Structure formats: structure tokens, C-alpha cells
């Protein structure tokens, strides 16, 4: 066993009504996903301000994923449609600035999709791990 195996720190913003319940289901079903995925529960995916994402990177996240209800299923009817536009533009901008595009992701995960939640996190963590530590968007001075 490798002792110093690099494990990326992933921040997952999950909406309360679908994705957070999806994560719960993944747990109840004993499905494995990396322990370094830190879930932050938000009322709706559209609560995620672009600043939250940048701040997470600044504080040392290597990847940030936003999970919300499937289009059409948002508890607040249309929140995730706004999320979709915002994140499309934000991710594209980060890429334009030279930040690796695999570090950000938006996924739709319903409350019944525990398996999808676990699979998504495993896949995302793997992709981010392949990139290595987030150097570009990280603020070294904030590291304790």
C-alpha cells in the first residue's frame, strides 16, 4: 500500500431536495465514494454563488462539483435552469483563464439516484486526482 497516495479534496455543493438526499441514499446503501468529498448542503443549486466556488478553491479544494435536481424537478421550479446558465458561463470563463476544466462540474442527481451520486463522485475524484493539486486557483497564504 502506498502511504502518501495523493487524494484530492473535493467540495460538493448539493441541493437539499434532491442531491443531498441522493448522497444520503448512497450512504444508506453502503455505496463507496471518496471520503475527501466534502458535502455542503444548499437549499437549491442556484444558491451557489460563483464566489462560493472560487472561495472553495482558494481554501484548498482541488475540485468543486455542484449537484442539483434534474431540470424540471427543482423544488423551486426553475432554480436549476439559472444554475445551468451561470455555471456554463463560469466554467467557460475559468477555462479561458487557464484553469483546468476538469476541476469544475455540474451534475443532476435526484433523491433516488444514490448509485449515480456515488459513481459521479468516484469519477470526478478520479479526474481531479489525475490533475494533481490545485495550484492555480489556490491561495497559498490561506493554507494553515
Amino acid at each position: 500500500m502506498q502511504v502518501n497516495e495523493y487524494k484530492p479534496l473535493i467540495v460538493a455543493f448539493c441541493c437539499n431536495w434532491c442531491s443531498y438526499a441522493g448522497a444520503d441514499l448512497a450512504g444508506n446503501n453502503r455505496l463507496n465514494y471518496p471520503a475527501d468529498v466534502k458535502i455542503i448542503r444548499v437549499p437549491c443549486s442556484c444558491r451557489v454563488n460563483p464566489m462560493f466556488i472560487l472561495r472553495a478553491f482558494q481554501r484548498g479544494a482541488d475540485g468543486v462539483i455542484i449537484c442539483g435536481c434534474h431540470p424540471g424537478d427543482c423544488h423551486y421550479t426553475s432554480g436549476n435552469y439559472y444554475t445551468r446558465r451561470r455555471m456554463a458561463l463560469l466554467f467557460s470563463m475559468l477555462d479561458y483563464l487557464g484553469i483546468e476544466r476538469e476541476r469544475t462540474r455540474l451534475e443532476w442527481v435526484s433523491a433516488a439516484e444514490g448509485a449515480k451520486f456515488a459513481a459521479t463522485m468516484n469519477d470526478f475524484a478520479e479526474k481531479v486526482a489525475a490533475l494533481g493539486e490545485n495550484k492555480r486557483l489556490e491561495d497559498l497564504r490561506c493554507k494553515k
Partner: protein
Amino acid sequence: MQKITRDTLVSKAVSLLENGTVDAVLGWGKGEFAYDVTPTVFETADEIRENFVWNDFCGANFSKYLVSKTRKLEGKILVFLKPCDTYSFNQLLTEHRFDREKVYVVGVPCEGMADISKVKAITGDGISAIDFTDNGLVITTLYDDEPKTVAYEDILAERCVNCKSKKHVAYDELLGETGEVLESARFDEVAKIEALTPDERFAFWQGELSRCIRCNACRDVCPACTCEKCVFDNPNSGAENKAPANSFEEQMFHIIRAFHVAGRCTDCGECSRVCPQNIPLHLLNRKFIRDIDNFYGEYQAGAEVGTRAPLVDYNLDDLEASDVFERRDSE
């Protein structure tokens, strides 16, 4: 050189003030130097005759001033707007930022404005006098015996090189004639950056953004940035630092500033104009505009009053965030 003369603007302002149509005039006023034109509120005809300026350095877009000026003033205020300024004017109206009834808009045609940094790059510092001639600006400096002539095409401001429209989209009255929406090459440079490798892009932006001194001028001047309470003034946001504490703050400021105006930015060019560090902020704004055009259909903020900005709108079959790069890479 501007085709329309200062006299035309002055006599228009004076007559509207004297016949009572307006109670004040928002225009370009004399500053310390010939190129240092200052936005000014004139309240008397004498002030106008004496201090009003109209030349190739009248880049300042007054739309945003209307937000505070119309609040202070009881009556009506005259504002001179160039074609690009009228887009900002419409955008502010769309956002209900001031009362249209309190403003009288006089549209002025524009031949393009000069960028003083470009002038100084040619002539050097110490400019003591500027003559506006048909062949270009004749510049006298403290250090040269002979005045230098610089051609207009060499000193045109970036936003004017890539002017998107000579058409006034809002006015009560026009001086001279309005023009057409232009085919501009304003997205060419964005496309060039997109074509670089991620490492090259990162290096490019690091070089540009690390010069930022966080003077906040780009935010303060922006007609789309009219929040009464800005995130960057909030000490709890961790982003209020006046000087970039580290490279991350710079990126954060720039990403968030551009993001907050995405879909509402009219590409008026004021942010790049005022940046003392000559950071090409338009390349960030235009990236958003280009993406919006590509992803959600062409949209020009401020072209009309009352349109829904793309980020406060959606379609059921919008592009998924994961398909963004596929869409772009296939172009």
C-alpha cells in the same frame, strides 16, 4: 477629429438651459490638462461657455452619473450621449436605475475617441498643449522643441477601434446624424486567447491581472455596476482588499466583477478606458458576451429597453454545462 463642433454642443446646452427645458447639464468639463476631461454638472450658461469641452478625449460615458444626479436634482437634467453611451443608458433604464422623465438626452455623433496612453507612448510624457487638426493631434511637450503630429488611427481607444455601433439607441434629440450598427471585429482577440493552450492562457492572464492595484476604478465607472452595496466593499466577504493581497484576490475580483455584469455589460469600454494599469478588461467582458451569443443566441445589452438579460432568463433545452467545451472546441 470630431466632426460636430464644440460650439454646436454649447449653444444647444445653453438654449435648453435658458428656455427652461432642463435645469442642469451633464457634460465634459475642463480638467487639469487638455486630455484630462472631467465629467461636470453645469448649472449656468456662463459655466458652460467657459468650461464645456468637446474634443477627442471625451470618452467618459455619463449614463451612470444619472443614477445619482437625477436623485439629487428636482428638475430635468440634460445629458450628452455618444452612440455607445446610449446602450448603457438603455440598460440602466431596463434595470430601473433612474427616472427617464428627469432626463433629456442629446445624442452626439462620434468619430472615435483618443486613448491618452497611446498618445503618450508616441510622444512621451510632459504634454503641455494639444491642437486638434484634420491630420491628427499636434502635441507639444515640455521636452521637445518641435510639436509632434500623431495620426488619429494610431491613437484611437480600443473600444473605438472595435466600435460596435454608431447608432444612437436612445435620445430625445440628435445633433448631426446617427449612424449604423457596425460589423466589428471585437471578438477576434477573445478567439485568439481561446486558441492558446491552457498554460499559455494562464500565463497571459497572470501577467495582465497581477498588475492590478485594486483601485476599483473599473467597477466605479461601470454603468452595469450600480449596486448600492457592492460585495467588494463588504469586509466580511474577504474580497474587499484595496490592494491585491495575493494573486487569488486578483483573479477573484476580476472573475466576479466580470461575472456580475455578464449579460448586462453593453461593452461600452469604460472599464478598460479608466484602468490605470491598462489591463484589457474588455477581454473578460467580451468572453462572456461571446459565450452568451454562442450558447443562448445573440444578445446585445442595452439595444432595447426592457429585454431580459440572459442570466435572468433560461430555456428548458439550454446547453448543459458539461457540453460547453464540446460546443466551443467544435467551432
